[in-house]
């Protein structure tokens, strides 16, 4: 469970979120610039709040009152953003192995098994020896996801991490990822501004607007209005009169 009570000033608005993310899979939904990415960066420890605290699985990571700030690398969290940020001077396999290098509790064989497993999970096994400079946008995002999964974080945060993939590939990866994360008992927070993505996952949904949490609950309840809007748009598309087909001149 992740508990946050945060206040921070960001980009012209006051960010104020206090809630508990208890579900294994939570979707943070909201328009662009609402503060979704800020929330993830604050939880990851990459940014500091003006005031507040963050507790991940019972352990306080940030508490401004007592000046507690656990460094990002010791929070056991993974964050995959839209920009893959792969280390350009390391190969794909070296990128994925980066988070395991400091793990003295794991043997070489275990590390290799983990690397192979996560690369296979995201469908990037064939890219292992390639340089990040020779990857497409979608391939780079798959590798970035594998790199975040390899150390087995307690909390995985995904900030629209597969936006460069087509819908089919994205759904395929997300489906296999959900199963794998459930098996590994890794809590996940997924950020999206696409209501269809949020509705498809059947997860708990947190709705954020202008830096404030406006709702938290099951997707069907929180996104009821969005769902109606999408359905209305769909119906509108279906009932629109068909355009007359022009006869082709070439026969």
């Amino acid at each position, binding site marked *: 469970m992740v508990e946050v009570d945060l206040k921070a000033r960001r980009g012209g608005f006051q960010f104020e979120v206090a809630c508990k993310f208890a579900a294994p899979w939570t979707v943070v939904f909201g328009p662009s610039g609402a503060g979704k990415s800020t929330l993830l960066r604050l939880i*990851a420890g*990459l940014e500091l709040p003006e005031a507040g605290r963050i507790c991940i699985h019972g352990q306080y990571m940030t508490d401004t009152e007592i000046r507690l700030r656990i*460094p*990002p*690398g*010791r929070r056991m*969290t*993974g*964050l995959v*953003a839209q*920009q893959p*940020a*792969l*280390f*350009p*001077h390391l190969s794909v396999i070296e990128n994925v192995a*980066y*988070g395991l*290098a*400091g*793990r003295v509790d794991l043997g070489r064989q275990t590390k290799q098994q983990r690397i192979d497993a996560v690369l296979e999970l995201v469908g990037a096994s064939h890219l292992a020896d390639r340089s990040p400079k020779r990857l497409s946008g979608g391939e780079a995002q798959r590798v*970035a996801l594998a*790199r*975040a999964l390899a*150390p087995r974080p307690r909390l995985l945060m995904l900030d629209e991490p597969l936006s460069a993939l087509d819908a089919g590939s994205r759904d395929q990866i997300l489906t296999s990822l959900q199963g794998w994360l459930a098996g590994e008992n890794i809590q996940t927070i997924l950020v999206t501004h696409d209501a269809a993505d949020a509705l498809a996952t059947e997860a708990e949904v947190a709705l954020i607007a202008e830096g404030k949490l406006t709702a938290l609950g099951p997707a069907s309840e929180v996104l009821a209005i969005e769902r109606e809007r999408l359905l209305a748009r769909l119906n509108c598309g279906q009932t629109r009169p068909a355009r007359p087909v022009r006869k082709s001149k070439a026969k």
Partner: protein
Amino acid sequence: MDWQAFALTLKLASLTTAILLCLAVPLAAWLVLGRSRWRAVAEAVTGLPLVLPPTVLGFYLLVLLGPLTGFGRALTSLLGHPLAFSFGGLVVGSVIYSFPFAVQPIVAGFTSVDGSLIDAARLLGAGKLRLLRTILIPLAGRSLLTAAILSFLHTMGEFGVVLMLGGDIPGATRTLSLVLFNQVEGFDYANANRTALMLLIFCVALLTVVYARPKSLAAGARHG
């Protein structure tokens, strides 16, 4: 051509460059990655030799390292001889005088590394030392080369600090720039021309290396 002075100049420039790189890399990393409120003060002090007349710096170092101060007296008793008017004193002066020429290119190189790469490495457990070793230095390799060459050349050409702090002792503190000064003062223009040409060719050759943009190192600076 005064080959003894040439060898001494090369020795001084090499030693100064090596010391500067050892000091400048961790300092630049601290300036780029650190959150201390003292960073601005540190940057200002680091850049001071750029605007301070070399004679002023040389004078203060001469006083500091000499018998007039407690620090100078302690150093003298520790080493068995005063640091001023010795090769060691020259190295200290050169390191201080060329400090910004080493620190500033490295700071610029580290700053140009994409912040998202640094964030990714920190999330994956990299501390500052590992971040420096595995991300900043490999990706800003060209800036380290630039810093090394600029420091080397700046030390080779320095005059004011060398004269104030080292005097002009053949074999100990007489560098090529002092030789050139002496030759011009003695109206020995033919030899002065040779010495000046030697320094000029050396500087142009090394600066060409900086601006030639070797692909293997430049590639590291581009990422995305």
